[in-house]
């Protein structure tokens, strides 16, 4: 009797501990957003030879006896259990051996309706990917923030560090961090609000800049740093948030005016031109070509908004850029016409080798993040042709992409699955423009994404860690005056 009381008390204690308020998501395939047998679905993907272990779990809720057998040449390894988790050292050894070949995988388990078995491969590319990924973590969709942070993930391991965060900036708003052509020593992001400014990282020297002069319609918004480091090209936008009443498109954001400008980081000037500040044309999302001799951007005739929102179709345009004096030239060359395709281009990004231009295509507008139909498009800049992207795109928004500095890989944010939370996906581009099936950023805990309630916003690849951290940014925010630009 006494023993049974002790056992009961012990069981109660275990139950109490087990019934804590924590949300431990494992294991479960319940719901309809994980339609594949494993999550993340790493079947038949191509991965870089320096990526962290591809940990995953089987989603069959009533499955049991999971066995996963990996083999590659002389190597073989069997992992039992629903969760398939690698030791980093072992995984690295496998990647080195499998470089340029396939890892063969046999998955088998039991279900109430009978045994299940299937084979698949992981192709290990010889092309490495840039080792660092920066992104902003934010609750999705509604342009508000609390406890924001910009993180830098080491893609070769699971190490993550904050490069700017709410703790060091009194919960300030911060926009996403972008590298110039994947360079860790040339990058920028914005800290908004009081004490804020554009934080420019050039060769490890940090500056805080006020990128606005009296003639501009707003501070700078979207843009990129010139490969030479002296210039930045930006759009200035009057941005209006709105909502759809139907169709789960949630938030819509549109511009009622937008222009282009150039920042001279050496001279402290903003260079504007009437040709790119026209009231009858909206210009946005400017970026430099790989050689810095051109600027790509998106442009549409001005419309009455929001009434004409669905008629706002932006074209992809290229203009010359004079890197001696920082001027945007002419003529404008339309690479892809929005009206002709009855669609709208956003976020062009040129590959650092100058071969490819990646951009997103939505039905209309400039805010495709909630547009389910929004897909990535890849243009061969040698031929001007668009290449097939079925292996990459999904039935939810695919956007906010960036290139690895070797131009062999790109990362993008996709809302595939739950449709709400953006996650970083990667794809390989072969020399002839074949793209591989996209794979999700691996995490140490295969259930990581199940309990993640924030979006990975604007994932951006870097070939080296940025030479600052959140504490340094906090010091700059507090102690350094923003440099005025005229």
């Amino acid at each position, binding site marked *: 009797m006494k023993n049974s009381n002790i056992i009961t008390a012990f069981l109660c204690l275990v139950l109490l501990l087990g019934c804590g308020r924590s*949300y431990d998501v494992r294991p479960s395939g319940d*719901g309809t957003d994980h339609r594949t047998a494993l999550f993340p679905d790493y079947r038949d993907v191509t991965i870089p030879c320096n990526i962290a272990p591809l940990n995953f779990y089987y989603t069959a809720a009533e499955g049991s006896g999971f066995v996963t057998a990996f083999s590659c040449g002389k190597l073989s390894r069997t992992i039992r259990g629903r969760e398939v988790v690698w030791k980093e050292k072992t995984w690295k050894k496998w990647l080195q051996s499998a470089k340029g070949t396939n890892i063969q995988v046999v998955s088998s388990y039991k279900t109430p309706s009978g045994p299940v078995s299937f084979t698949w491969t992981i192709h290990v590319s010889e092309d490495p990917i840039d080792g660092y990924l920066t992104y902003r973590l934010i*609750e999705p969709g509604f342009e*508000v923030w609390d406890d924001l942070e910009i993180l830098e993930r080491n893609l070769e391991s699971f190490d993550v560090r904050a490069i700017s965060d709410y703790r060091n900036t009194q919960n300030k708003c911060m926009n996403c961090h972008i590298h110039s052509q994947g360079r860790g020593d040339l990058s920028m992001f914005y800290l908004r609000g009081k004490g804020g400014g554009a934080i420019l990282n050039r060769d490890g020297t940090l500056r805080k800049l006020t990128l606005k002069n009296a003639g501009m319609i707003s501070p700078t918004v979207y843009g990129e740093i010139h490969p030479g480091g002296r210039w930045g090209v930006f759009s200035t936008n009057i941005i209006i948030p*709105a909502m759809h009443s139907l169709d789960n498109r949630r938030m819509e954001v549109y511009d009622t005016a937008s222009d282009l400008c150039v920042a001279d980081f050496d001279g402290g000037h903003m260079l504007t031109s009437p040709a790119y500040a026209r009231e009858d044309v909206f210009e946005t999302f400017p970026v430099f070509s790989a050689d810095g001799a051109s600027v790509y951007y998106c442009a549409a005739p001005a419309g009455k908004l929001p009434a004409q929102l669905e008629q706002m179709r932006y074209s992809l345009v290229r203009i010359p850029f004079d890197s001696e004096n920082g001027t945007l030239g002419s003529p404008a060359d339309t690479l892809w016409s929005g009206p002709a395709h009855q669609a709208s281009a956003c976020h062009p990004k040129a590959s650092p080798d100058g071969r490819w231009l990646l951009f997103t295509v939505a039905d209309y507008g400039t805010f495709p993040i909630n547009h389910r139909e929004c897909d990535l498009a890849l243009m061969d800049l040698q031929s001007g042709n668009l290449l097939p992207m079925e292996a990459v795109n999904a039935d939810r928004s695919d956007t906010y992409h960036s290139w690895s500095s070797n131009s062999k890989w790109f990362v993008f944010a996709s809302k595939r699955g*739950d449709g709400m939370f953006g996650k970083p996906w990667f794809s390989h581009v072969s020399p002839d423009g074949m793209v591989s099936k996209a794979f999700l950023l691996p995490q140490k805990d295969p259930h990581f994404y*199940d309990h993640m309630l924030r979006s990975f916003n604007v994932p951006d690849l870097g070939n080296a860690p940025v030479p600052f951290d959140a504490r340094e940014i906090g010091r700059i925010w507090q102690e350094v005056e923003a440099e005025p630009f005229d």
Partner: protein
Amino acid sequence: MIARKVIWITAVAVALAAGASQFLYLTKYTYFRKYASINGLSLVEAQRAWGRPDKNSEWVMGLATEAFLENWDKVSALAAEDHHNLLGTYYYNLSNAKRGQLPDKLLDYYQPFERGLFLPVNDKASAFQIGCAGDVWWALGYMPLAERDAMLGLTFSPAHNGSRFLRRLAEANLVKGDHEAASKYLRILLNSPADRAWAKRRLPGQWSPQYQLAIEEKRALLPRMDYVHGMDQVQIILRVMLNSNPSNRMALDYLLCYDLLTKDLDAFVADFAPSLTASRLYEEAMLIFLASKGGMDMDNFRHYNISENTLERFNRFVTIYKRDNGAMANLTQDFGKTYWYYFYFAQRNEKQ
């Protein structure tokens, strides 16, 4: 040695007593405890986030908790006492609207203009207020804002988690038919003992006929046309809803009460559908409009269902108002809860 032991024992005893007293204090506030739980917080975390509970916080947390549990009788009972509090008014109005009594009881209570109908969601609003703002949109059947406010509630909640917001996010997406988005939240809730049964009943493909019916009822309220609107364009949103579903009586009453509390009589007359809703409040408002536009005739009284009694009281109000040169003193007793009194004397507090 003994002295050391005594000091230690005393210190431990004091710490234990302080802890026990703190625990008892916190558990005394039932709604504080429940509200902490649905926000995914322990009592200590909740106290750190929201401060020590008191009678007032216990009351508003009670309103929010019972609204979350859809115990509208309890919401009504808690809101019965008028604390001249924005959240109290918001839940008072919502519980009345659930019974089809929004206009009838509107002016029996403190009304800080339209803010007591739709809680402002802006940089001046508290996190608590933002967390409550979606309840009215959920009740009205407007899922875009029910979802937005749940996401904002989650964003500004101390743990960035909690079943209060996850349940709403899941259900708003189920109503919209986005089962993939709902599954994300339901799977998290399935792993919480307090929410498991609730989530299981809502998993796509596992609905009972009753739940299917409840979802269908909500879906019937969804707008059937797409309209891009600003975040705070309440009148436009309600008109879009009514355009698709003219029989959504709750949306109609909310729109008309919004028009009246903002003293927008032209909008009220344009939005009013006498065949779909009726209330003494609407009769009173219509009389001000008719009197100002020279429309005081029997045809209009019949068309707008204006009773003889209301007309007689209006004439008395006007007589006293004119006699006293617009002073309110002699009107408060008999007319303090009429729309005429509100229209002429209520003043917006710009600080709020």
